[in-house]
């Protein structure tokens, strides 16, 4: 009987239980969907739903589009051409990922508004007061700008990693056939890297759909703000769940389109010697224009916001009492490293099972694994909370000790919520790693009589290190920046850089939040850099 559902080895058994564990909170939430429709829901449908859908679709579409344009073009340029500082840009262009979009939005508003540096400078030096609408970033297009400039690195990162490995021989062949660079880009690079940039864009889209900070600050109603509002302002958790289900349907469509566009195409190589593309040296105006393009993107997404934050930190330094920074930093690093480690382990177990055991059950594992990414943080938080409280009740029953919340008052609840929320990111990296190495070596090892576990550690794992590391990095950065879950599920006296920066910013003390934001960004930058360093060394 167990064989029937695929319990043929340790991997599939562990995967099965992991998947059940991950599903539990969603089950508790979805039960709410079957409650009867309330007046509130009719009110939402009549007055609000149209706006939510319109705004969400516009944000997703344009952010996705611009992220592809910027991410893919830059990934190609740094791979194919040798221009001023192009080696630096290979990892430098990932840096905007270190800035949480909500901090980015506060920073840009502070920079551009009437009391900001730019207008102040014009006003005090040239007595120039311009029309305020030129500086108004708090609009739908402003939000698209913020999301694109801080999220495009997802596309860049994955496409860059792909091109580095996969493009050389194809490009060289095309060159010998006399194809122009433009034709190579559109006829070769775009098609072969489609899987990579679609995967990256999917991450961008999911981030946008889930983001709460930016749209709330800008006053744009989207699904994620509406879920919070329905739940909190209207006190109607069932309608909030109904909206979440709409959002999840939206996400499932996005994920389905992704799978569809990948089609059956898989570009994996049978030889392990992966030859990097030889970059063409650029001179003259070409050299400069490429440098200016990359530098402008980097400035908008990283240099300018960071300079602004440094300035604010300097002017507000004396105002921050009782910072206790070291503890906060340790908390942040602690949860993000432990969290990402656990997530990567879970992702590897599930992805490996899916790869080896192809049946109806495992096919759905992949979908369930990425499901959490589509559920808004607050909804996951409630689901996880209910789940942990149920487990605590169970523990109380067994131990006979009343009035004790062992699990739900601990850090494990938070880490478990991270697992649900960010497994998708870890899983995507691991899956693409598995796809890249293909199954030939795995099968060879199995034919030689090695078990799945031995084959995994001896054969698969060493080849997958870069994919695992980039997954680890991405998840760490995500957890470092994560807000709603951390706010709701953390134990007593537990603050992270993100929660403290947000608390200040939320109280409209953006200057005071600057120093915490800066430290957060600094740690993320170290993570980004250590990844590229390890990658280089490994090669």
């Amino acid at each position, binding site marked *: 009987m167990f064989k029937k559902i695929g319990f043929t080895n340790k991997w599939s058994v562990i995967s099965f239980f992991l998947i059940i564990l991950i599903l539990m909170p969603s089950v508790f939430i979805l039960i709410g969907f079957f409650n009867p429709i309330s007046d509130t829901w009719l009110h939402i449908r009549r007055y609000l739903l149209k706006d939510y859908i319109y705004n969400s679709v516009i944000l997703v579409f344009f952010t996705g589009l611009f992220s592809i344009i910027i991410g893919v073009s830059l990934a190609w340029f740094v791979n194919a051409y040798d221009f001023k500082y192009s080696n630096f840009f290979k990892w430098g262009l990932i840096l905007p990922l270190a800035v949480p979009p909500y901090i980015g939005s506060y920073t840009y508003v502070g920079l551009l508004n009437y009391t900001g540096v730019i207008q*102040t400078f014009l006003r005090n030096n040239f007595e120039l007061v311009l029309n305020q609408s030129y500086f108004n970033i708090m609009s739908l297009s402003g939000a698209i700008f913020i999301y694109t400039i801080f999220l495009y690195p997802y596309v860049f990162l994955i496409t860059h990693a792909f091109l580095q490995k996969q493009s050389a021989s194809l490009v060289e062949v095309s060159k010998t056939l006399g194809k122009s660079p433009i034709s190579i880009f559109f006829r070769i690079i775009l098609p072969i890297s489609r899987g990579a940039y679609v995967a990256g864009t999917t991450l961008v889209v999911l981030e946008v759909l889930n983001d709460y900070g930016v749209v709330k600050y800008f*006053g744009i109603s989207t699904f994620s703000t509406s879920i919070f509002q329905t739940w909190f*302002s209207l006190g109607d958790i069932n309608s909030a769940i109904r909206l979440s289900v709409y959002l999840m349907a939206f996400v499932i469509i996005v994920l389905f389109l992704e799978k569809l566009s990948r089609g059956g195409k898989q570009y994996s190589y049978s030889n392990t010697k992966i030859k990097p593309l030889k970059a063409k040296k650029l001179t003259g105006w070409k050299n400069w224009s490429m440098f200016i393009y990359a530098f402008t993107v980097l400035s908008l997404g990283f240099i300018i916001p960071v300079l602004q934050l440094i300035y604010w930190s300097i002017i507000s330094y004396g105002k*921050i009492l009782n910072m206790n920074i070291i503890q906060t930093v340790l908390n942040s690093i602690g949860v993000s490293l432990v969290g990402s*480690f656990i997530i990567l382990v879970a992702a590897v177990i599930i992805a490996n099972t899916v790869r080896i055991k192809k049946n109806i059950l495992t096919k759905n594992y992949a979908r369930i694994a990425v499901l959490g990414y589509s559920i808004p943080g607050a909804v996951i938080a409630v689901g996880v*909370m209910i789940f942990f409280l149920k487990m605590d009740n169970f523990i109380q029953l067994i131990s006979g000790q009343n009035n*004790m919340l062992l699990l739900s008052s601990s850090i494990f609840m938070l880490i478990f919520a991270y697992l649900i929320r960010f497994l998708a990111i870890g899983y995507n990296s691991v899956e693409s790693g598995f796809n890249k190495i293909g199954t030939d070596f795995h099968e060879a090892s199995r034919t030689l009589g090695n078990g799945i576990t031995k084959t995994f550690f001896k054969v698969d794992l060493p080849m997958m290190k870069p994919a695992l590391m980039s997954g680890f990095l991405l998840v760490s950065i995500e957890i470092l920046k994560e807000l709603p879950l951390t*706010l709701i599920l953390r134990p*007593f006296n537990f603050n992270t850089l993100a929660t403290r920066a947000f608390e200040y910013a939320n109280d409209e003390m953006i200057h005071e939040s600057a120093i915490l934001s800066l430290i957060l960004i600094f740690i993320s930058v170290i993570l980004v850099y250590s990844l590229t360093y390890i990658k280089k060394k490994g090669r």
Partner: protein
Amino acid sequence: MRFLNKGSILLIVILVFSFTTLIMGAEEEVNLYTNRHYDTDKLLLDKFEEKTNIKVNVLKGGSDELIEKIDREGEDTSADLLITADAGRLHRAKNKGLLQQVENDTLFNNVPENLRDTENYWFGLTVRGRVIVYSKDRVDPSELSTYGDLTDDKWENRILVRSSSNIYNQSLLASFIEIHGEEWATEWAAGVVDNMARKPQGNDRAQATAIASGVGDIAIMNTYYLGKMLNSSNPEEVKVAKQLEIFFPSQETTGTHINVSGIGLTKHTKNKENAIKLMEYLSSVEAQEMFAKANYEYPVNPNVEPSNLLSSWGEFKPQSINLSKLGEYNKKAYMIFNRVGWK
């Protein structure tokens, strides 16, 4: 991979350590769920710890999330006290059956009747007004009178106010539902929407800045934001604040809308005595000054003078309704906003 192993082992050790310190806990303690994040609050709690030897554990978060959490934790909740920055939220906690009555003479003396729950489920700790802030250059204060006057045609294209998703706007409208009825409140909201200088965006500070930059002439905002701007570390923001003046609306009629941040004792508290001690302390003369000053708010304790800045704005007549009503009409208010298209 070596990098990863070393790092994560170290961090697992850190985590296990922090976990054990968490479950060990001190002998005498009180657990506080709060959505105030001011550094001075921490100093105040430290003082309380020093005086009483009772350790205060703090969990910060949004008030709605904290209420939800207490609700879900049920009888086992670790929360003893809840502090939120809006009376409506405390009312919601009361309605959900999360709080309990406190009959305590010290608190009765320290907190005036209209600033606490009618049945003493919660007590206000600090007071703020939601007022009109106007441009000194472009608005003559004699033009201003009541909240109702804001729907007059003379304010067309001149009013700045943040989005209706904000709790302060919801509470403001809820107070009008209580005083003037739902119909009046709906007309008022629709009239303000007609007179808005732009679609609602940004926070209260952003409205003030928009006056200075000429987008609009008057803004509806909370008193303490002007205090914060006058003390900002950005000199430009101070300049902006100096171009503005506070007007307390409806002085001849129903009074200016006020709201509190307040505290309630949870129904399933395990440290009732300690919790009440902390409530008493926070409302005491000694604590009130600092607690209110942290956020440029008015103290509730009548024996404590407001700060110099607040005194300079003059005394004002507040709305006389009981603040529980803000919570009662919250949902109605929110729905009115949606109906009239207040984004």
